[in-house]
C-alpha cells in the first residue's frame, strides 16, 4: 500500500492533513527529514504562515532541494495553501521572496475591494478534466484562508479558479505537481474526496 509523507517544516497544521488522508484510507506520516522523502510514494507540502519564513525554514532544513529532486523522480507532490504558493517563482508578501519556481508566476496580494484575508467557503470552478477533482459537483465549496493569491503566468497550469475580488487560480497542476489554495482537509466531505483522489493518483503511480 502506498504511503504519503506530510512534510513538517515548522509551518502550520500538519496533523489535520495527516488525519484527513487517514480518514480516506491513505497511509500518511508526518516527516521532517528530507533524507526520508525517498521512502514515500507521494508528498504533501502543507503550510500556514508567511511565505518568506516558510522558504527560509525549507532552505535551512534542505527541504527545498529535496522537494525538487523528489518531483524530478516523477512522483506526486501536493501543495496546500502556503504549500501551493511556494510552488511559484516568488511572492510579494513582505517585500519579495523567492519560491521553488516549479510553477511560473508569482503570489500577489488580494485586492482591497474585498475583506482580506479571504476566509470562508468559496466555489471551485475546475478548468478542464482534472483527475484530482473527480466526483465533485458544480458549485462545490471549499474552505479558504489566505491574503495572497497565485498568479501563474502560464495558463496551462491552472486547473481551477475561484472568484473573490477577482477571478484567480485556486488550483494548479501538471504531470505530478499539484497545488490547492484552499484546505481540502478542512473542507468536509468534498475536501476529503480530493484527498482520496490524490491518494488514488499516488497509488496508481506507486
Amino acid at each position, binding site marked *: 500500500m502506498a504511503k504519503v509523507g506530510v512534510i513538517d517544516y515548522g509551518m502550520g497544521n500538519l*496533523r*489535520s492533513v495527516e488525519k484527513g488522508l487517514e480518514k480516506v484510507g491513505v497511509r500518511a506520516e508526518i516527516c521532517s527529514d528530507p533524507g526520508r522523502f525517498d521512502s514515500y510514494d507521494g508528498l504533501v507540502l502543507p503550510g500556514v504562515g508567511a511565505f518568506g519564513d516558510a522558504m527560509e525554514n525549507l532552505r535551512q532544513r534542505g527541504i527545498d532541494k529535496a522537494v525538487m529532486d523528489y518531483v524530478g523522480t516523477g512522483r506526486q507532490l501536493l501543495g496546500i495553501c502556503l504549500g501551493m504558493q511556494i510552488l511559484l517563482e516568488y511572492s510579494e508578501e513582505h517585500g519579495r521572496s523567492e519560491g521553488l519556481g516549479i510553477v511560473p508566476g508569482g503570489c500577489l496580494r488580494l485586492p482591497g475591494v474585498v475583506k482580506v484575508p479571504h476566509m*470562508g467557503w468559496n466555489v471551485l470552478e475546475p478548468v478542464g478534466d482534472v483527475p484530482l477533482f473527480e466526483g465533485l459537483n458544480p458549485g462545490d*465549496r471549499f474552505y479558504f484562508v489566505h491574503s495572497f493569491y497565485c498568479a501563474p503566468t502560464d495558463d496551462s497550469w491552472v486547473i481551477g479558479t475561484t472568484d473573490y475580488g477577482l477571478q484567480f487560480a485556486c488550483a494548479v497542476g501538471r504531470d505530478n505537481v499539484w497545488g490547492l489554495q484552499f484546505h481540502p482537509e478542512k473542507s468536509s*466531505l468534498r*475536501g476529503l474526496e480530493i484527498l482520496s483522489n490524490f491518494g488514488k493518483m499516488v497509488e496508481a503511480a506507486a
Partner: protein
Amino acid sequence: MLAKRIIPCLDVEGGRVVKGIHFVNLRDAGDPVELAAYYDREGADELVFLDITASHEKRDTKVKLAGLAGDEVFIPYTIGGGISTLDDIRGILRAGADKVSVNTAAVNDPSLVRRAAERFGSQCVVVAVDARGRGDGTWEIYTHGGRTPTGIDAIEWVRRVEELGAGEIMLTSMDRDGTKLGYDIPMTRAVCEAISIPVIASGGAGNLEHLAEAIEQTGCDAVLAASIFHYEEHTISEAKEFLASRGIEVRIH
C-alpha cells in the same frame, strides 16, 4: 462569492457537552467530538467549542479536546474559554484547532491579541466580545462570561482589537443570549459597520428567521447558534435551505 457561515457552538465542561443536548441518533450526545463530527456531516461550516471548565486543569482539557476533535472533524474549529497566554494558544493550535478565541484575557491585556496575531497569524485569533446595551444606543463589554462590567465601549473595543491584529470578532449579545428572541440587530450592525474584519453574530437565535434577519440586516459574515440545533428544532441543512430560499449564499453539501 463567499458563503455566509453557520456555526454551532458547543459548551464543554470537563470534556462533556453541557446544556442537556438530546440527539436520538447519537450514541453519546455528551461527547463533544461525536457531536462535532455529526455537525460536520450535517453541513455545519465551522464549529466553536467553548470550554467552561472552572478549574486549573482547563488548559489540558482544551489541548486534549483540540486533539480529539482533529481525528473526526474536517471543518475548521475554534476553541475558547479561559485562554490567557501565548503558550495556551500554541498548545491548542498545535493539537489541531484552527483558531482560538480570547475574551477576558484580551481585555486584561490587549497586547495578547497583537502578540498572538504576530506569532500565529491573524486568521487564527478570534476575539470574543460579550456586550450589553446601556439603554442609550451604546453597548458595554463584559468579561468573565458576561458577569463583570468593564466600562469599555463595545465599538471602541472592536476597533482597537482589529488594529491589534484580531482576525475575527465573535459578538455575543448578553441581553439576547438564551432568550430566543433573535440576535441584537442594532448592536451587530454597529459593530459590522465599525470594522472590516469578519463578524460572527451570536446570542438569541430562536428560529431560522432570526438567522436570515441577522445576515440580511447587519452585514455579519456568520451566525452562531446553540439551542436551535442542539435540541433538533432545526437541522443545519434546513437552516441552509431556508437561507438559500432567501437568496443568501450558503454552502449546500
